[in-house]
């Protein structure tokens, strides 16, 4: 048989429960959800993994993944994750957070959890908007980007520049691995999956803190068609949030 390139994976991962998600068409959350479920199946870690669902669009994450899960107050997600990890260090713990949760109300928590080097994996979905509440400005909203609370576009004078938390965290001593990925082309998605796997390995083998920021489409509140959202990330968001490894102490 000639090689035909990567096989298409069809069917639902076992760790992804047969529930209809509430995500909008073209939303990136579902892709990351599937990546997590695939890793849980491939590594057989259902019995070792505990996840944190944030407040925001991913609040129902606990409903979709077939693993033990916990909820946190808005922004406190990584501290609750750290509490679980401190109590049961053998678990693999991830904190799944949006940009409002991590870069807005939870800025303090993410900085100090990273600074203490808590051995958890943070999955940071950056779609530059508050989705759950109806499309308001996020700390990562782009200059000029229209949201329901920046009807004329984000003004740098009034609202400041988008916050690059991953770069900020990379200045700290303790974080081991920080990478910004994209939910975009199949290649981008594979890259994202590999980054999440690496983050879990950093947690398991090096007992270190890592964070994977994922630029993720929100066609609904960007007011762009789903099939144009990926190009929108590449052409627009990556000006401020370029993809790539931001910090890697494993090398």
């Amino acid at each position, binding site marked *: 048989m000639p090689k035909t390139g990567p096989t298409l994976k069809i069917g639902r991962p076992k760790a992804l429960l047969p529930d209809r998600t509430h995500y909008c068409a073209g939303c990136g959350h579902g892709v990351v959800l599937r990546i997590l479920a695939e890793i849980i199946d491939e590594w057989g870690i*259902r*019995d*070792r*993994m*505990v996840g944190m*669902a944030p407040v925001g669009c991913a*609040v*129902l994450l*606990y*409903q979709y*993944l*077939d*693993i*033990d*899960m*916990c*909820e*946190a*107050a808005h922004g*406190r997600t990584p*501290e*609750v*994750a*750290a*509490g*679980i*990890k*401190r*109590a*049961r260090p*053998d*678990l693999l713990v991830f904190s799944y957070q949006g940009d409002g949760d991590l870069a807005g109300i939870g800025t*303090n*928590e993410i*900085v*100090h959890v990273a600074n*203490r080097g808590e051995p958890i994996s943070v999955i940071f979905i950056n779609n530059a908007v508050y989705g759950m509440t109806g499309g308001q400005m996020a700390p990562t909203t782009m200059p000029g980007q229209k949201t329901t609370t920046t009807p004329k576009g984000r003004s740098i004078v009034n609202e400041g520049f988008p916050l690059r938390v991953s770069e900020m965290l990379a200045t700290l001593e303790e974080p081991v691995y920080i990478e910004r990925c994209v939910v975009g082309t199949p290649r981008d998605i594979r890259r994202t999956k590999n980054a999440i796997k690496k983050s879990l390995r950093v947690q398991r083998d090096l007992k270190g803190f890592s964070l994977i920021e994922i630029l993720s489409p929100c066609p609904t509140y960007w007011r762009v068609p789903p099939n144009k959202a990926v190009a929108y990330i590449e052409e627009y968001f990556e000006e401020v949030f370029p993809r790539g490894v931001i910090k890697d102490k494993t090398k």
Partner: protein
Amino acid sequence: MPQTEQKVLITGNVAAAEGAVRAGCRFYFGYPITPQNDLPEYMSARVPEVGGVFIQAESELAAISLVHGAAAAGGRAMTSSSSPGISLKQEGISYLAGSELPAFIVNVQRGGPGLGDVRPAQGDYFQATRGGGHGDYRLIVLAPHTVQETCDLAYEAFDLAEAWRCPVLLLSDQQLGQMMEPVDLPPMKNIPDVQDHPWALSGARSGREKRIVKSFYWRPGELEAFNKRLREKYLRMEKELPRWQTDHADDADIILVAYGTSARIARDAVRHARQEGIRAGLVRPITLWPFPAAPLLEAAKRGARFLVVEMSWGQMVEDVKLALYGTAAPVDLCWRSGGGVPTVHEVTEHVRALAKE
């Protein structure tokens, strides 16, 4: 600190800490605030000594969130603070109550509102007994009046919290927290660092069903059904948990009602009044929620009147009136606020005046 039973001279704050450690607390998370600093300072050495985790968090919000996580994983986790810091923790306390997680919280009250002062006060009574954060819930609220009792109630707190799946708040104050008294230390309980409660997050081992610790119910009717169940639990608690102590209350015409530091002063006032032939007595609630109505109703049936002594300008007095609802018993209030502590003389004068009416 010795592992066996022994008599020691310690502060109320250290007594709360050591009582909790001996009860199996292996996770302490806190943030500095006066007048409870000797509690986290003590824990910073003590908890690692017994193989546990101490973290000085970056904020009260983070400290209570760490408690949330460790409790969800089955650990006996606690935090402590003082009034302004407890206000900040209310977010997490509401989530703990909504997630039905056991946890232990100590509030060494200081004067308020706002930054207030660092003197003894009882102005957080409403906050403590009405849940404190957003939503429809209660906490088990314990009110010690000596350093020994602070240790004993802390020692019992996790058992109550786990039995009822409800956070327990110990309501102390600056005076009770920072004074020293001799304490008989209880023996170490033999509790695993993390327990395998049927709800605890431990990894879905051996194909067991996954567990979710959450307080979010988004489908219509789900939250109401959950809150109904919570209410039924609280009603059972109201039947089973109220605890109090009486002093000369059986034949008293004037019943003083006081908790914590105020109760120590009220007890002395009762003695002075008795020496003068005034039949005064004391009912001292040990649980502030659920509030012990029974001893008050019993005294009211005998025709007693009531004098509430508290270091706030009138909070517990409302629970006393609620307890006596439907009776004709008069209820008076002797109060100091904003860091003021009533003197025995002041309270005794009040009792004398009532006796003359």
